[in-house]
């Protein structure tokens, strides 16, 4: 596998390869998000319990589920970078982090604005909310640790260790809050998935996948600029920069 992967481990190749994927992913993401959102907002039936407020689900659930996925992929990239010393993987991890942080922020805000009409409060210290908040803190920790080292090779290693420790921590946080909550009051659970009609489920799934593709596209765009920033001394980057400046 490494023999096959090796040519792509060259910065210039990776930069070009990522460049080939970006337009396709962007178009797919935009199409999926448009379809899913319009379908969900206009054509999906109104929920008999929650009325039209449930339509927040079409942005909330994709953001929440993809924020976790983005974290796991960041940690996997960081792990590969740490173990096999693959700089590409380090840069990928560093590119995913800000995207994941924004997605987590979206999941929190939309959850909060959904909670207000449904539960009557902007915030509940429920297991999901708390672990999502901690996820945001972990993302911010990784980002600021990466930013605070001058030497980006070291920065990537330090941030990588932190993101791997964080991945162990996430399930623990989730269960700990579940336990903790059972003390005070039973948290308000969302309606079961069993009751969801296909007219709600299909746009939701489209949006979830659309968010995933969008995260991939944004991470790859960031990855490309990260490759450029880290290889500023290489001739091909210099040529690119001077050509850009001449325009």
């Amino acid at each position, binding site marked *: 596998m490494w023999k096959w992967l090796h040519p792509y481990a060259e910065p210039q190749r990776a930069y070009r390869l990522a460049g080939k994927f970006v337009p396709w992913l962007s178009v797919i993401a935009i199409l999926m998000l448009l379809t899913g959102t319009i379908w969900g907002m206009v054509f999906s039936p109104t929920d008999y319990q929650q*009325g039209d407020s449930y339509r927040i689900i079409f*942005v909330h659930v994709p953001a929440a589920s993809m924020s976790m996925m983005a974290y796991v992929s960041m940690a996997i990239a960081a792990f590969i970078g740490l173990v096999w010393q693959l700089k590409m993987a380090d840069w990928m991890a560093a590119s995913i982090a800000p995207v994941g942080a924004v997605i987590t922020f*979206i999941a929190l805000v939309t959850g909060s604005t959904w909670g207000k009409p449904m539960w009557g409060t902007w915030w509940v210290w429920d297991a999901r909310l708390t672990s999502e908040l901690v996820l945001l803190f972990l993302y911010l920790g990784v980002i600021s640790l990466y930013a605070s080292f001058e030497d980006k090779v070291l920065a990537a290693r330090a941030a990588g260790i932190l993101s791997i420790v964080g991945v162990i921590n996430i399930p623990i946080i989730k269960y700990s809050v579940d336990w903790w909550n059972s003390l005070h009051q039973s948290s308000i659970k969302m309606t079961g998935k069993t009751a969801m009609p296909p007219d709600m489920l299909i746009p939701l799934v489209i949006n979830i996948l659309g968010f995933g593709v969008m995260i991939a596209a944004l991470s790859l765009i960031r990855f490309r*600029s990260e490759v450029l*920033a880290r290889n500023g001394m290489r001739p091909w980057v210099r040529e690119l920069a001077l050509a850009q400046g001449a325009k």
Partner: protein
Amino acid sequence: MQAQFHSLADFFHMGGYGFYVWLSYGVAYASLAILIGVTLTRKGRVLKEIAAKAKREERLAQHRSAKE
């Protein structure tokens, strides 16, 4: 499949939950827009920085050779 809302006003009203629905969508897409904007302009900024650095080094090299 048919539209669930009879008029545009109905759509914006969202059965009384308009404020919350549009607030959440607004914040979500605004933050996404900021992220996309920053992400798209980053390449240009990085290249500009590198170009400035390259030019500076070139100037330095010329200065040095002129002196000798």
